[in-house]
């Protein structure tokens, strides 16, 4: 079931498209990046050294890798969710769902393997891209940075947790359009909640409102916190300078594990109750 889900995702074309784009970016970077002949810890881009400013005590190589990781992880994640959000509703289509449900597998197994398959499809893209960049850095620049690879592992885990939301919406609405839309809205929602002290708190000075925001933050997968922390696997976060946490924190992953487990359980419960 997991394998078929990946295959279905591939055959729908979108994942293949991202895969191709990923390849082009890797090749482009392989061509453009080099190290400065004078200073081996200085990376050059088309011969121009990259001289990051205001990065505190962050290693410049780490800085470049963090930038790359942040932009690629968030874009693959976002586009990946577009590519696979429809996989849950497509399992529930009339004429197909009956076939799945007539098999001895439990509905929970069906649903979870579908979600894991969808996440694995995106994870394959992520890991392929990560290994590509990692090899470019290793072979061309002789920078073998294990943390860079590891950080993508955390991104994959973050995606699986994040996908619980998409799964739940897919089960309830049975609509691919809704699932994609909601996934998109949720990414904004998650970063807004993450920085709620700076923005959402200011909208309304009310304790109940603020507590509600806090509760929401903890009961939903903390996508944006997880992504930030996956970057911190590479090295110290240089930005924003006033931000306290510069080093990796596992807690958002723990909270998200719990909340996404609860959301997956809720989705399974809904699925088990439904008639088809």
């Amino acid at each position, binding site marked *: 079931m997991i394998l078929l889900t990946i295959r*279905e995702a591939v055959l729908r074309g979108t994942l293949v498209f991202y895969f191709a784009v990923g390849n082009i970016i890797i090749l482009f970077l392989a061509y453009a990046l080099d190290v400065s002949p004078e200073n081996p810890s200085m990376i050059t881009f088309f011969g121009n050294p990259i001289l990051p400013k205001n990065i505190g005590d962050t290693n410049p190589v780490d800085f470049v890798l963090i930038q790359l990781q942040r932009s690629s992880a968030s874009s693959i994640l976002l586009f990946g969710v577009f590519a696979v959000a429809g996989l849950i509703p497509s399992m529930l289509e009339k004429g197909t769902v009956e*076939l799945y449900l007539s098999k001895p597998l439990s509905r929970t197994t069906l649903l979870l393997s579908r979600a894991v398959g969808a996440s694995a499809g995106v994870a394959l893209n992520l890991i392929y891209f990560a290994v590509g960049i990692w090899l470019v850095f290793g072979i061309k620049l002789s920078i073998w940075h294990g943390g860079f690879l590891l950080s993508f592992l955390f991104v994959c885990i973050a995606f699986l947790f994040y996908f619980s939301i998409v799964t739940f919406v897919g089960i309830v609405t049975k609509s691919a359009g809704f699932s994609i839309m909601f996934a998109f809205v949720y990414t904004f929602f998650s970063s807004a909640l993450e920085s709620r002290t700076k923005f959402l708190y200011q909208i309304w000075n009310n304790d109940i409102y603020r507590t509600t925001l806090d509760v929401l933050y903890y009961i939903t997968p903390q996508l944006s916190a997880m992504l930030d922390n996956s970057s911190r696997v590479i090295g110290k976060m240089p930005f924003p300078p006033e931000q306290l946490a510069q080093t990796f924190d596992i807690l958002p992953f723990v909270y998200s594990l719990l909340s996404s487990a609860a959301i997956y359980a809720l989705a399974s419960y809904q699925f088990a109750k439904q*008639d088809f």
Partner: protein
Amino acid sequence: MNIVETSGLSKTYRSGLFKRSIVHALTEVSLSVRKGEIFGLLGPNGAGKTTFVKILLSIVHPTQGEATVAGEKLGSPSIRERSGYLPENHRYPAFLTGLQTLIFFGSLNGMRGKALADRAHQLLELVGLQDWKKVKIKRYSKGMLQRLGLAQALLNDPDLLFLDEPTDGVDPVGRKEIRDLLTSLRNQDKTIFLNSHLLSEVEMISDRVAILNKGKVLKIGTIAELTSKQIEYELLLDRSLDDSIIEKLRPHLLSLNVEGKKLVIAVETNVELNTSIDILRSKGILIESMAQKRTTLEDSFIDLIQREATS
């Protein structure tokens, strides 16, 4: 032993905004299917046939009532392990070939490796799709999909086969092939549960049938029990009959109907038919043509549904 046993099974669908639209799809359906028979569930569209099968396979949850399948309570995964199901309007992932489809659904049945591949090839041959097994199923016709669906339902070598409108979209030759296949499966001691609105199809192969209308079972029995026992003949004569001849015929017949030169009679056996012919011939009447009018399941079905509607 009964392989399917339901008692008072009811299903009310609630849908729409705030679940306000209510459909009573099944009302107190109690019936039993014996092991090794072909059982036909007959009824017009919307009668609740599909709902009934889906309840047995736990695709739909009943609102009320109980059922056992192969001795197991509803919801038990072992029911689905031992059953095969051909849903109506089934749709397979269109990007797979026929063979891949069988391999995929077989793996959901818990089958693996060479045993599964062999079984898939064997079934494709059985349903006559061996030349199409490497073709993507988006290129299959309706009839071919139906055959593939049948192969899919047989993957796990089920004891009990649920077929929902199996001959839908299949051409007459294909229909005959499917009927032959079902008969041969019955001979292998499989039980077949057949949903159909095509009475003549069901009539040809079912051992017993139930007639369902608007969610209620109107009648259960063998085809012979459900169709009336009398035989009707329609005779065309060279002149209209006068009353004295009609009175002579009447004692030998179950019923008699005259329309000008046309005479329709119902008899129990052909002895009474021949007596009637003798009477007509002795009066010098010429018989120009004679045809047997069989009462089919369809007649008694329509009769039942109409009686239900007027009462």
